């Protein structure tokens, strides 16, 4: 039965590719279309990932594919006035923001902007026309479509998303914020594609937020490729606060040259189904690759974080710290792989995954996986799945704290270890606040969502299409 859904969906996608080829190809470069063709072949052969595959063993996509999804291969939202339907409510978060509506970048003035420091920000579709060489040099070089079925699917259908190019020696002052909004009347299947190129000794902070504005079913399959050139510094924050009917598969591929620093921080506060795949290829000496994650899930939510760190060069450090709190019947999966290749001597690689289960029904599967071929390395991994410490609970109660307060304090403290890693003050304060609210049960769904899914009278939206 389940296999049928995936086969049907696969056939439908392949058929769509044929009929919509003109639209899908758009103005993509010949090189991009070659990559696309290769990826489509991979998808034809491998199809959707199944639970037979180790990295998808505990995460079953098939039930999600049993939906009549709508696809839109033409940009219908490019000049929507986004401020009318959405404003980010993180106070004091001063960012240069870019919005994606149903997979397409929307803009007020121009699809691509050159900032004062020379940084280019805007639509990937447009970048393929204006900067074909730049796109051809990088796109698809980090996203391994042979290993990742969903990345292959994304690559086959890629059309638009965020494009950023930071020239050498440029420090982008303000964080660049990507707001990815799904707002559709019917179930949609979206595949945004982002490309971020950070030049030598350049630095950037990227804040990536996923929101849904309706509680319709949606499936978003995102691929982000980030290239950190020599000495580059990249901070990536990925937040999500989605409706329960949303499915989100997000790939973040980082390619690091020597002396580069990458830190990623993935915060999952809400969402029906979430799979994050983070892959860092360390292709130079003296790199740092830090990966943090926090997931707070309840009801029957499912979150899966998969990390692959590939140490290809000596003398670099990687660190993974993922923490989660699971309530009700929520499920979490963590699989963290560290590969230290034979030449990657003096590698230091650390990995830790800690889970707190609040009920007997909540479930966490954690799989640390170290593959080490070098002999002079320092690696460690740890994983815990447990309840709150009963000794600490009694200690706190014996000082007069009620059980509920004690539990909340411990959970907030547990999550705090990851939240503290956020270096943007306004964002950290906001996330801390949201985590606290979430753990106090005051935030059951996206606060921003004007639909207030918990209320009985949903508001409806009218996107002004007359401007197209």
């Amino acid at each position, binding site marked *: 039965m389940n296999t049928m859904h995936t086969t049907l969906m696969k056939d439908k996608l392949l058929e769509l590719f044929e009929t919509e080829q003109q639209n899908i190809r758009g103005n993509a470069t010949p090189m991009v279309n070659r990559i696309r063709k290769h990826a489509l072949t991979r998808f034809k052969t491998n199809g959707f990932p199944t639970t037979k595959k180790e990295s998808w063993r505990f995460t079953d996509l098939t039930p999600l594919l049993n939906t009549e999804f709508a696809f839109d291969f033409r940009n219908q939202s490019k000049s929507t006035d986004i401020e009318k339907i959405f404003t980010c409510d993180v106070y004091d978060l001063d960012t240069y923001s870019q919005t994606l509506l149903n997979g397409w970048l929307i803009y007020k003035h121009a699809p691509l902007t050159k900032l004062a420091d020379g940084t280019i920000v805007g639509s990937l579709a447009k970048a393929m026309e204006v900067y074909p060489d730049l796109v051809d040099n990088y796109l698809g070089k980090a996203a391994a479509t042979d290993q990742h079925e969903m990345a292959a699917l994304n690559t086959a259908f890629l059309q638009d998303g965020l494009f950023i190019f930071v020239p050498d020696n440029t420090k982008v002052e303000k964080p660049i914020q990507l707001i990815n909004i799904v707002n559709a009347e019917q179930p949609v299947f979206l595949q945004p594609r982002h490309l971020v190129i950070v030049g030598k000794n350049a630095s950037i902070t990227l804040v990536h937020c996923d929101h849904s504005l309706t509680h319709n079913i949606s499936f978003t399959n995102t691929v982000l490729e980030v290239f950190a050139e020599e000495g580059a510094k990249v901070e990536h924050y990925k937040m999500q606060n989605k409706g329960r009917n949303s499915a989100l598969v997000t790939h973040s591929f980082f390619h690091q040259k020597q002396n580069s620093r990458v830190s990623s921080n993935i915060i999952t506060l809400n969402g029906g189904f979430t799979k994050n795949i983070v892959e860092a290829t360390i292709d130079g000496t003296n790199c740092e690759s830090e990966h943090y994650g926090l997931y707070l899930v309840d009801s029957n939510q499912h979150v899966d974080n998969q990390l692959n760190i590939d140490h290809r060069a000596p003398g670099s450090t990687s660190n993974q710290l993922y923490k989660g709190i699971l309530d009700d019947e929520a499920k979490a999966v963590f699989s963290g792989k560290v590969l230290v290749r034979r030449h990657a001597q003096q590698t230091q690689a650390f990995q830790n995954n800690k889970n707190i289960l609040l009920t007997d029904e909540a479930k966490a599967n954690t799989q640390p996986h170290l593959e080490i071929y070098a002999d002079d390395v320092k690696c460690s991994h740890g994983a815990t799945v447990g309840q709150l410490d009963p000794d600490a609970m009694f200690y706190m109660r014996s000082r007069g704290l009620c*059980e509920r307060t004690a539990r909340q304090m411990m959970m907030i*403290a547990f999550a705090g*270890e990851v939240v503290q890693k956020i270096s943007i003050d306004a964002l950290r304060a906001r996330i801390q606040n949201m985590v606290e609210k979430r753990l106090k049960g005051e935030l059951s769904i996206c606060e921003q969502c004007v639909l207030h899914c918990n209320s009985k009278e949903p508001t409806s939206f009218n996107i002004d299409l007359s401007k197209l």
Partner: protein
Amino acid sequence: MLSIKNLTVSIHGKQIIKGLNLEVKEGEVHAIMGPNGSGKSTLASVIAGREMFDVDEGEITYMDQDIFDMAPETRAREGIFLGFQYPVEIPGVSIANFLRTAINEKRKYLGLEPMTGAEFLKLMEEKKKMVEIHSKLTNRSVNEGFSGGEKKKNEIFQMAMLEPRLAILDETDSGLDIDALKVVANGVNKLRRPDNATIVITHYQRLLDYIVPDFVHVLYDGRIIKSGGKELALELENKGYDWVKKETKTDTVS
């Protein structure tokens, strides 16, 4: 203030306290001494409300209320404080935040307005001085990475902040050097008031050189087998516990 009658306590079916009686009145300091495994810490835990023990028989009343009707936090808010033998580490929870929450939950229970940030800071500075804490201990996570001495000092500091009516100090002296011991004892002495009481549980006599008790009880095999004044502690130090044990056996025979 505290009245324990014929208390019998077991854990996993094994009896640890076997018919214990104790009366503590306002203004008094009681020392409970005894060899390892005699039930000292169990007694302290049961008074504080630890749920892992089964109370098979007997009663404990505190300020004329049945203690077994009260949750541990209620006992704390009513003024019972347990200084832990092994204070628990709570990573990520700062002492200041922890104590402010504890104080305000107690105030709420007593029908008082919560303490403001400024009031709390003032109180904290005052009490830090009282128990001779000069470091920034209060900014750190509760007991995390603390030395043995720091943990015990922190217990006394929390006691000073919470101003209990009945404080039970469970082997607060264990693992302390003489300087730390003096600091801890000084704190306890400064906190003595005519309307509160202290139970000091200890293995050694030396703490009682600094905290002078009104009564000394010897706890052995789940029972108080001898009670006396402060001189009993000295006698114990000289003659050892075997002396009391023998004496008790003789008593039983005669």
